[in-house]
């Protein structure tokens, strides 16, 4: 029982850290969206000389939008877990006081608390634990899905770099855009990796 409050406190801090990381990824994903629009615009100006790049930039834009959708779902999920963990922290605090009450009580008070804590524990506590475990599983799954999506983005960025080489007079600026893409997607990948590591540690 004594381990519970610290446990939940740690869990809450972990969720907060995860949230911060996800916020960072969301901000970056937004940047990708702008970059993709910029790439489409550039490809249009380059016209015939950058047909391949134009196709890729449309793909990248679709990718950016998918990523954003994924991110808002992720964020929603961490909000949900904050409220679950908060409820758990509150329960744990109540439990701590109840445990003290049990220790101090004698006679009818004692047996009342004993009985109360038994039912309360098996109901409330087990349910919260279950909720957290489920949340963690879903979060891990979603991070894995996102990582896969981002992997696709990174392939697109590499292809864009190759296409940029055929961009004639626009080659240099197309290359610049592709490299920015690649770097930004790399940032997201690193964030996701650390998220995955954190999730693995918690499961």
């Amino acid at each position, binding site marked *: 029982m004594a381990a519970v409050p610290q446990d939940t406190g740690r869990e809450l801090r972990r969720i907060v850290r995860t949230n911060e990381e996800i916020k960072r990824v969301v901000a970056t994903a937004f940047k990708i969206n702008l970059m993709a629009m910029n790439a489409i615009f550039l490809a249009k100006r380059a016209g015939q000389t950058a047909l391949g790049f134009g196709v890729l930039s449309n793909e990248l834009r679709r990718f950016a939008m998918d990523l954003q959708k994924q991110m808002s779902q992720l964020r929603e999920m961490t909000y949900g877990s904050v409220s679950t963990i908060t409820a758990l922290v509150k329960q744990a605090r109540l439990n701590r006081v*109840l445990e003290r009450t049990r220790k*101090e*009580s004698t006679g*009818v*008070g004692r047996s*009342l608390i004993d009985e*109360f804590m038994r039912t309360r524990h098996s109901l409330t506590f087990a349910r919260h634990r279950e909720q957290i475990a489920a949340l963690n599983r879903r979060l891990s799954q979603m991070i894995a899905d996102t990582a896969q999506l981002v992997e696709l983005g990174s392939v697109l960025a590499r292809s864009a770099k190759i296409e940029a080489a055929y961009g004639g007079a626009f080659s240099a600026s197309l290359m610049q855009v592709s490299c920015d893409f690649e770097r930004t997607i790399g940032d997201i990948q690193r964030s996701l990796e650390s998220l995955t590591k954190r999730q693995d540690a918690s499961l």
Partner: protein
Amino acid sequence: MKTARVIYEDGKHKWIALVRDPNRPDYLIDSNEYLVVDDDDSLLLDPGGNEVFPSVFSALSTEFDPRKINKLFASHQDPDIISSLALWLEFNPQVKCYISWLWASFVPHFGGNKETFISIPDGGMDIMIGSQRLQLIPAHYLHSSGNFHLYDPKAKILFSGDVGAALLPQGEDDLFFGDFDRHIRHAEGFHRRWMGSEKAKHDWCQRVSQLDIQMMCPQHGAIYRGDQVRRFIDWFSHLEVGIVKG
């Protein structure tokens, strides 16, 4: 744990004071909780803070079945008064809490929902406990802006919340006291600083002077008996309050 002391008993009508926990950490202000019992019915007055719940609950159970606690009265909104609400609700989700309408939407931050609270209008109201009628006496601005005391006409006891409170030094913390002048020194600083309004103070002194009071039970410190009650009212009416000095 605290001690449960029966301070009044007449047949099925009883007042139990829950007082003085020797293990209370010194960073928490000491508080008195009172249980008014009439037959099987009861009202718990100023149930106390979260931190003292274990001690209140265990002391209470020695005299009364805690499962039967279904009515609480909070004289005002302070944490030492009612922050244990969530715990009482854990035991009995049907518990009702009487509190000034002023605080009825603030105190749910400690626990409870729309069904939990019974708002007391500014003029006060009566509460039936068993066959006994108890009166909620307005004591606004002493110190809280929405504040009530409780008068039991049968027992002739006034529960006076923070009014009459004394911060007693260790070794001088008997539940009753002998020497008024000696005792009131421990109440003076508290009343000067916590009580906010001269006008409210005079109103209160006037109002309670008309009641027949055998015992005045504050939420902190010792209980006033007999003539000590009259002396307190007199002392309080002459005390300058609502001013920060220094």
